């Protein structure tokens, strides 16, 4: 007696959260059954292994079908109770973009971090800033081996990044809002995706060995600051001329701003200005800094580093290396002198503020836009 066919279809689709988790993690049916047996479910429920096998198969089939429908997710075929929807953003997933005005906009649910669009830190760290193209997909095998995340799960996460990227790439307006509305993700998750999309778009290098100590959270934090301050959207003005419509307001850095950053070079090129700046900072910080002498000795190097990073940002190549440069030029020197974080904060505050007292320097607003963001980023990046 062998079972040829075995299905269960409910009018509302029942989702077992544990099985869902196992499926998301990319386990095969056999492995999932073994894991469920180990969880003691048989003893709890008095079920047999055969029942568990049938149940797991059934859930996997459902998830697989739902995944296929993900791309035109109208909640047509599977009615899922709203209480579960709050748990699984996936089931609502994509709603149709504005092309379909006949469909009333669905209200976004306060969605739970942990559904289909959730991702593993270890995985995202591997692909962050890389181009989301097919070439990278071939590397998924390596990532899977390296991180211990199943290949299936890697695929899903990668495809999610790509899908979100593709949808919001063409859209204007707030990146986070766009993601949240079109994928009905939680606020937190939408912010993370915004960071991922932003990094992928600008191709920031994050894989270098010296950047390995940084977490996804560090980068996401920086991304958020940069989106808020350095993009076109940050200026708050909708581009009026039709040409600039090609720019994504939140995804691309403000080119004009990057161009202007060259003006900051005077801070290190003009020796008088540099000395004056140094003396202002040193006067203010004397006695307040544990590492004062080291700071005094290194001031010119640090300042040169920070200003040169700004001046170079007109080249795409240098934009990509932004984080490498920041770590090399600022984080590492300070760390080798054992600056405590509080001293770094004091220094950066004073370093930014003192510029306002430099009479010969005319780009105060530009400096603030640059340094305000950079200060936040550096403080976040400064750890072991």
């Amino acid at each position, binding site marked *: *007696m*062998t*079972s*040829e*066919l*075995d*299905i*269960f*279809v*409910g*009018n*509302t689709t*029942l989702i077992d959260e544990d099985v869902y988790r196992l499926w998301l993690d990319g386990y095969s049916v056999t492995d999932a059954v073994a894991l469920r047996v180990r969880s003691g479910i048989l003893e709890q*429920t*008095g*079920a*047999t292994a*055969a*029942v*568990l096998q*049938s*149940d797991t*198969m*059934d859930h996997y*089939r*459902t998830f*697989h*079908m739902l995944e296929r429908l993900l791309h*035109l997710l*109208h*909640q*047509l*075929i*599977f*009615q899922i*109770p*709203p209480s579960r929807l709050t748990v699984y953003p996936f089931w609502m997933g994509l709603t*149709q973009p504005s*092309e*379909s*005005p*006949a*469909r*009333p906009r*669905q209200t976004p649910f306060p969605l739970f971090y942990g559904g289909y669009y959730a991702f593993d830190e270890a995985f995202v760290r591997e692909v962050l800033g890389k181009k989301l193209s097919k070439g990278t997909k071939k590397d998924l095998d390596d990532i899977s081996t390296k991180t211990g995340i199943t290949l299936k799960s890697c695929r899903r996460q990668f495809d999610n990044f790509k899908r979100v990227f593709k949808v919001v790439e063409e859209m204007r307006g707030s990146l986070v809002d766009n993601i949240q509305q079109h994928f009905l993700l939680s606020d937190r998750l939408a912010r993370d995706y915004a960071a991922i999309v932003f990094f992928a778009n600008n191709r920031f290098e994050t894989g270098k060995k010296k950047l390995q100590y940084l977490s996804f959270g560090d980068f996401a934090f920086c991304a958020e600051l940069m989106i808020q301050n350095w993009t076109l959207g940050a200026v708050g003005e909708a581009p009026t001329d039709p040409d600039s419509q090609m720019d994504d307001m939140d995804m691309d850095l403000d080119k004009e701003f990057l161009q202007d950053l060259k003006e900051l070079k005077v801070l290190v090129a003009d020796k008088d200005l540099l000395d004056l700046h140094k003396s202002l900072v040193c006067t203010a910080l004397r006695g307040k800094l544990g590492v004062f002498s080291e700071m005094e000795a290194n001031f010119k190097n640090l300042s040169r580093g920070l200003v040169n990073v700004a001046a170079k940002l007109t080249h795409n190549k240098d934009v990509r290396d932004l984080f490498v440069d920041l770590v090399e030029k600022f984080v590492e020197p300070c760390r080798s002198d054992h600056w405590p974080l509080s001293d770094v904060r004091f220094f950066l505050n004073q370093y930014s503020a003192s510029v306002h007292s430099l009479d010969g320097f005319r780009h105060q607003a530009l400096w603030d836009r640059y340094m305000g963001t950079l200060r936040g980023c550096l403080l976040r990046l400064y750890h072991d």
Partner: protein
Amino acid sequence: MPGKLKVKIVAGRHLPVMDRASDLTDAFVEVKFGNTTFKTDVYLKSLNPQWNSEWFKFEVDDEDLQDEPLQITVLDHDTYSANDAIGKVYIDIDPLLYSEAATVISGWFPIYDTIHGIRGEINVVVKVDLFNDLNRFRQSSCGVKFFCTTSIPKCYRAVIIHGFVEELVVNEDPEYQWIDRIRTPRASNEARQRLISLMSGELQRKIGLKVLEMRGNAVVGYLQCFDLEGESGLVVRAIGTACTLDKLSSPAAFLPACNSPSKEMKESPLVHPPSHGCRSTHNSPIHTATGSRLTQNFSVSVPTLIYTGMGSGSAGKEGGPFKALLRQQTQSALEQREFPFFTLTAFPPGFLVHVGGVVSARSVKLLDRIHNPDEPETRDAWWAEIRQEIKSHAKALGCHAVVGYSESTSICEEVCILSASGTAAVLNPRFLQDGTVEGCLEQRLEENLPTRCGFCHIPYDELNMPFPAHLTYCYNCRKQKVPDVLFTTIDLPTDATVIGKGCLIQARLCRLKKKAQAEANATAISNLLPFMEYEVHTQLMNKLKLKGMNALFGLRIQITVGENMLMGLASATGVYLAALPTPGGIQIAGKTPNDGSYEQHISHMQKKINDTIAKNKELYEINPPEISEEIIGSPIPEPRQRSRLLRSQSESSDEVTELDLSHGKKDAFVLEIDDTDAMEDVHSLLTDVPPPSGFYSCNTEIMPGINNWTSEIQMFTSVRVIRLSSLNLTNQALNKNFNDLCENLLKSLYFKLRSMIPCCLCHVNFTVSLPEDELIQVTVTAVAITFDKNQALQTTKTPVEKSLQRASTDNEELLQFPLELCSDSLPSHPFPPAKAVTVEKASPVGDGNFRNRSAPPCANSTVGVVKMTPLSFIPGAKITKYLGIINMFFIRETTSLREEGGVSGFLHAFIAEVFAMVRAHVAALGGNAVVSYIMKQCVFMENPNKNQAQCLINVSGDAVVFVRESDLEVVSSQQPTTNCQSSCTEGEVTT
């Protein structure tokens, strides 16, 4: 030209990509009704086209309106080659043809293709203007309401229950026509879907005519079935119960003058005496002569059993004269009827007087294609024969009517088993005819028959019993006689006193049969049938005793025929009726009493059985009050103390009296173990595991002893197919496989639904089919309902009072509710409600022109989910409106079975799609639930070698609007708002 059908194609969404190059689609729509076709413009390059078409108007006979489905085809325009079909939508416009149902069909319908499944959605608006041409009512039967629900629908009152209506239509199956060799599978499937849709429409119209002839206005318990007879054709047949219904929530509540419903009905056009011409021919594409294309050259009628209590006894003549009087009355009410049958399973209070027992009849027929289309109507004759038999069985039980009546078939190649079953009963004539009979008799009736136990009292004459039965005085009233066991096909009457809870009881049986052809095959089958019936009955009885219960409700016995075997599956809900005597235990008797070890074994088994009975009594909370013998009163003579069931039929005659059973209870059941077969039977009795704690199951509407349902319901369908491995199968191995299949299926259900505990699986409906030689397919549809455990414990004490109370409040609330609804819908309709009411009352036609009056239903539900349930009600909610029946037939075929996830993936997706389409149609009618939902057919065929599979599904149910009880107050108190979600054109199917 009595009707104008108007259709508007609004938009589409999520269409599939038809042009690979552009990743887009140039879609347009063809709208077809009858022979008229309209087209929309082509909407270029979009997957979400906005056609916003004009109103396409079809001027048609109302007869066609009833028969024809509206056919909408979405196509992709192609300049150079033929246009590609994306998919179709069939819309049954019947719900628009009667006044109280839907006024407009509007919503998003899934676009369905028989090869690809659902491919996007289309937004359609459909309206009908009917003209007041009274003469035309004779050819069509517009206005007759249909309900699948097998009880009087919740917001109606039965004025008269007229009785049985039946009809069948026959046609050639397109799948077997010569043209099928040359056309594509898609074309063939679509021809089939369309034909069945047409035939259903025609059938419904014809039944409607019969109802009008009987002066009724509705069909309740409407059951329509398809017989796919293969080469010999396609039969669509339906049965139902004609009624005159009066809407409780009708605006009559405003006007005291309308209190006499029968009078009101006479003014209604629907009951205008239909004059001649009902049977007039018409230009239907279907041959109207029923059965004309089929013939019979072989027929076997199978002797059938009459199930009732077992045992024997005889006694006095109490109640004689009264009973005679009653019988006379009922007889006069029923005698004009050819078949006094009722498809209802639940009845208005007082309708059911006595229940005799289950009656059933089966007959084996040979199907053959007929070459002469003028052949007499053999199908009708076959069913008439069977119904006659049922009628005579009922008569033998002293009953004049059969309730809970149903018919079914099982077909394998050219052999067909026709089955009919029901419950013989004596009915109260009050409901069967016009108000004329009301008078002294009725009053006497009510005085004399305490409704709580009346239905258990035997209807037949004690001195002249049709079969040996063991009678005692009723344990409730102590006046009338009752049998010791009662089997019925109906639902448990609400006023019945039940002790403890009920449970699902199944008897499962397989019998091998030699492969044979034609007559030899039919003879072999008909020879096997009586034994199967007997064994199924024995199993049921044993299992019932094992549960410590004494009555079965909702009994349904299905016998399925296959190439080399017969399967029997009986399902019922066992309960302990307080009016019937306590069941005795089960005694085991060995055949060789001298063997010591054998004795020991027997006593061990006996102990196990006794333990199980005790455990079950505890589990189902069966603690009947102890009654001493004296109270029971006059001893009833008992010529035989026990009945005996013998395993092997050949030995039955000679050993009856010699068994020593002195140690048993007086009316114990004896199981004799005389061979290994019997041993296994006993074992199998004990292998049925009870559901895990927190779960109950029944196949009736409600579970006795549980009243406090929460609103959490989950309807589901589960299908399993197993392949029998060995070639040299024995009956025992087969039985075990089948038993395991059913038990494992139940176990899986319990596991799947464990998050709903405490819960009850209600209306569990098993269907067995044998699609191929070694395949057994079991399909289960049921609904799981969560209940509140704490309250459940209290209610068991006084179930009667509760249910009575509930019944009365039910009516009150139903009367109150429409007022609230009206006030809510005020802003959206042009007249003040009072005026609207007057208008309708004065109108000779409550139909057509004044349709606009009724505001769209305001479901006000926060969740746009469409509920589906096989029950006739929704727990925690009030049904405020019936929108019409849903009767849909789908075919799905694939030539890429592996790619679609194998047979499981294929069928899973298809069933999910069927659910989606049912929901979409309900939502488009403005409803938010389907009640009395049933999957009548699920025919699955596969050919894995060719990577192909095909499946046919037929579902039906009643589309309704319900309002949560908790929302009721909110609705009435709230300021009328405009959130009539379900009625707006952009209403979501599911949000």
